[in-house]
């Protein structure tokens, strides 16, 4: 670990600026705004998983009293993108729950009644519901125009395989020949949902000329504006998007569903239109994580050195292309220094909702397969599973499987910490099993903007463009406090709307504290420069004779000026005389986000008569770079662990033979409840990212990756039986124990 830097406020755990509003019920989420004269919008959804939509007629609904607008495909621009077709079905419906029409009415009850008056006819087609079915040569096609991308030559006939991707190095077959031990496995994971507690909701208020505003719960209101404008053929400058507080997203609120519908309905009705998905609609018609089928083969020498690794990864894209098979393929072997590997990945259309990002999209599925295979390899080699990973671990300078050499990374530090952690060194509880696994995510930078306003009393207002999901406003305030040298309490952070601050990409990819933080720091540096110049003007000295220290301007050492230091408040109070208000700003496209690695371990107990799993302990160790607000870093690690465990143990999309989701509610889509989990121990490893002023890496996504295999490996340890397919639900476990 690198030397600890002595920060003043970074690393402390102050109360978040939005906290009081959230514990008192004042915070306004997507559905929490009502406007005068507002209507309620509802969506009619397809009762079929795959059908030609031969007729849709909203005219009778429009005649109903209390109904002010009704729309269907005819109201949208021609030549839609896939996103446009997902927002509103055109010639085909491609999943059960696909939107086919929408109405706006004076009440929810009235809107619901109006849906029954919309006339539709369908020519039902057979649904394609599994990867095997979809990839078969004679498969029913979702899209006759889908020709597999990235092949050396474009194929001459369409298929459900939207794209393939390969990654390779060395010679795998030769590598396997060098191996003393080879393990192979075949792993299936069904679709799972992000399960944010707040359903999608928005209000659009659009005038006759197509100008107006949209209030919405989103991970990125600038990108929602861009996507909505594109789907509707509108001008982004005519639309103001305001991000409400957001009740969880985890990737699921990086794309739009309701917004274009609300905009069109509002424009037609000339009144504000509020739309809220029901929980059932969230499950049926927003984007879950891809279901996968992964095959892994790994060979090693007796000393544990991996000589070759091979992966075949098929991802369900849902109704439209775009499964995260690329990152899945790039992540699968990322923690390891491999000479010979080959990865082949597929983006496959099936009649299920179009998948969306879910925390480290693509990585949990492929890495579950690899980390399970490594557990088997360690058993065959009779080697400690952490030692096996350490033997092959990537470190600074290792050529990553996806190309470049890694800069400073913290995998080995995490493995070392795990090896001596009490959850690893203590005896495994009677009847339980212990599993370990490694997680990884790239993290990204991208575009961010920030403005820093110094108020007349020296307090600071930060305006940034990233919705705050997990406490990022607190992190922004901390980084600004550190940079400016003023107390945290003196700073407020605000998420501006699309008209009040510069463009920012979504809150996602673990980028906000990294990239938006970088913008905030630069904006603060801009302020410091201005303050120095104001102080110089006040004192009548040159700018280079002023320094900024502990939140005040002081004369540089050796400068002979008999002046008192000027605090931020002093300079702000006198701003009118020295050039007007103080406003700092920065906008950037942040590069150099640092990859983050984790090691998870868990003790699980299995009831061999019922297959029920008890989670006895869980430890998450992760290289977070510098932890700006450690409590929220721990929170990300704990939340990711809970989501990963949920996916491992009970969460799954269950479809009937017609492609109808059978568990579209929190009763049967079983996310972990409080009594399912123990306290989740965390250990933050801080290997600073050299590309960030304070060493931030990005934290939010890596935590969901390792729990899947850690749980599977613990159950293998507890029962002696390797169960390849998730979830490790009681019926699955009991069936596998009986088969063994």
């Amino acid at each position, binding site marked *: 670990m690198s030397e600890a830097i002595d920060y003043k406020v970074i690393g402390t755990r102050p109360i978040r600026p939005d906290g009081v509003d959230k514990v008192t019920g004042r915070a306004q989420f997507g559905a929490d705004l009502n406007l005068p004269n507002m209507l309620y919008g509802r969506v009619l959804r397809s009762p079929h998983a795959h059908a030609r939509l031969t007729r849709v007629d909203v005219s009778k609904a429009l005649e109903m009293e209390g109904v002010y607008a009704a729309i269907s495909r005819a109201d949208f621009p021609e030549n839609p993108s896939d996103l446009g077709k997902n927002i509103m079905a055109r010639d085909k419906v491609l999943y059960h729950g696909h939107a086919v029409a929408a109405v706006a009415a004076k009440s929810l009850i009235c809107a619901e009644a109006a849906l029954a008056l919309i006339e539709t006819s369908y020519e039902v087609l057979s649904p394609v519901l599994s990867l095997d079915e979809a990839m078969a040569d004679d498969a029913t096609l979702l899209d006759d125009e889908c020709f597999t991308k*990235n*092949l*050396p*030559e474009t194929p001459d006939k369409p298929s459900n395989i939207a794209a*393939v*991707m*390969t*990654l*390779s190095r060395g010679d795998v077959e030769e590598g396997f020949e060098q191996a003393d031990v080879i393990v192979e496995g075949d792993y299936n994971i069904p679709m799972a949902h*992000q399960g944010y507690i707040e359903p999608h909701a928005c209000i659009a208020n659009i005038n006759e000329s197509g100008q107006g505003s949209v209030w919405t719960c989103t991970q990125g209101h600038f990108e929602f504006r861009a996507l909505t404008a594109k789907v509707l053929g509108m001008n982004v400058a005519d639309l103001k998007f305001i991000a409400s507080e957001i009740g969880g*997203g*985890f*990737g*699921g609120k*990086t794309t739009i569903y309701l917004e274009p519908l609300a905009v069109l309905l509002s424009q037609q009705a000339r009144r504000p239109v509020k739309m809220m998905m029901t929980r059932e609609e969230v499950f049926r018609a927003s984007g879950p994580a891809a279901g996968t089928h992964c095959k892994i083969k790994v060979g090693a020498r007796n000393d544990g050195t991996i000589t070759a690794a091979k992966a075949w990864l098929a991802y369900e894209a849902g109704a439209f292309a775009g499964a995260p098979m*690329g*990152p899945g393929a*790039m992540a699968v072997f990322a923690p390891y220094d491999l000479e010979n590997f080959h990865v082949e990945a597929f983006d496959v259309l099936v009649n299920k909702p179009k998948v*969306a*990002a*879910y*925390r*480290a*999209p693509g990585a949990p599925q492929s890495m579950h397969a690899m980390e399970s295979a490594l557990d088997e390899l360690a058993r065959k080699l009779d080697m400690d599973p952490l030692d096996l990973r350490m033997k092959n671990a990537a470190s600074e300078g290792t050529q990553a499987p*996806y*190309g*470049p*050499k*890694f*800069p400073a990374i913290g995998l080995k530090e995490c493995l070392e910490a795990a090896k001596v952690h009490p959850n690893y060194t203590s005896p495994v509880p009677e009847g339980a099993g212990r599993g370990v696994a490694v997680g990884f*995510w*790239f*993290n*990204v*930078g*991208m575009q961010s903007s920030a403005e820093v306003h110094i108020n007349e009393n020296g307090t600071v207002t930060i305006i940034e463009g990233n919705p705050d999901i997990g406490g990022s406003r607190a992190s922004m305030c901390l980084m600004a406090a550190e940079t400016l040298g003023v107390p945290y309490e003196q700073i407020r952070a605000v998420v501006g709307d699309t008209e009040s601050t510069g463009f920012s990409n979504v809150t*996602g*990819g*673990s*980028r906000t504290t990294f990239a938006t933080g970088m913008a905030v720091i630069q904006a603060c540096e801009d302020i410091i420069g201005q303050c120095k110049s104001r102080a110089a003007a006040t004192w009548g000295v040159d700018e280079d004779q002023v320094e900024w220290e502990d939140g005040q301007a002081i004369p540089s050492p050796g400068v002979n000026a008999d002046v008192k230091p000027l605090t931020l408040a002093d300079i702000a109070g006198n701003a009118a005389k020295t050039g007007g208000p103080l406003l700092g700003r920065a906008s950037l*496209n942040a*590069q*150099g*986000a640092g990859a983050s690695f984790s090691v998870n371990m868990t003790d699980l107990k299995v009831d061999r008569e019922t297959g029920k799993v008890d989670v006895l302990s869980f430890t998450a160790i992760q290289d977070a770079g510098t932890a700006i607000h450690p409590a929220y870093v721990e929170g990300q690690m704990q939340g990711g662990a809970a989501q990963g465990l949920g996916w491992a143990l009970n969460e799954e999309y269950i479809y009937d033979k017609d492609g109808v989701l059978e568990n579209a509610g929190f009763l049967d889509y079983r996310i972990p409840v409080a009594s399912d989990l123990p306290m989740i121990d965390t250990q933050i490893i801080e290997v600073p990212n050299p*590309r960030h002023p304070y060493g931030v890496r990005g934290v*939010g*996504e890596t935590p969901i990756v390792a729990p899947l295999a850690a749980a599977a490996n613990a159950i293998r340890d507890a029962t002696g039986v390797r169960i390849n397919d998730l979830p490790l639900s009681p019926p699955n476990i009991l069936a596998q124990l009986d088969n063994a």
Partner: protein
Amino acid sequence: MKVVFPDHLLQHTGGEREVELLAVNFRELLLALDERWPGIEEVLAKCAVAIDGQIYQDAFLEPLHNDSEIFFMQRIEGG
């Protein structure tokens, strides 16, 4: 400098995985590559790139050195 393409771009480079080129920044590199394989610039513009180990989603103005290692890769987004 060394420029490396991933498998899915080989269809655009006639199967060449690695080339040596000279350019002072990334923008010039793209132009040089496009000269060699007309049309590839448009494809590469949609890629991320790693320059000496650092991943850039958009590297347009990044300076390059004679001994730089450049890997094109798929863009990463996140949740």
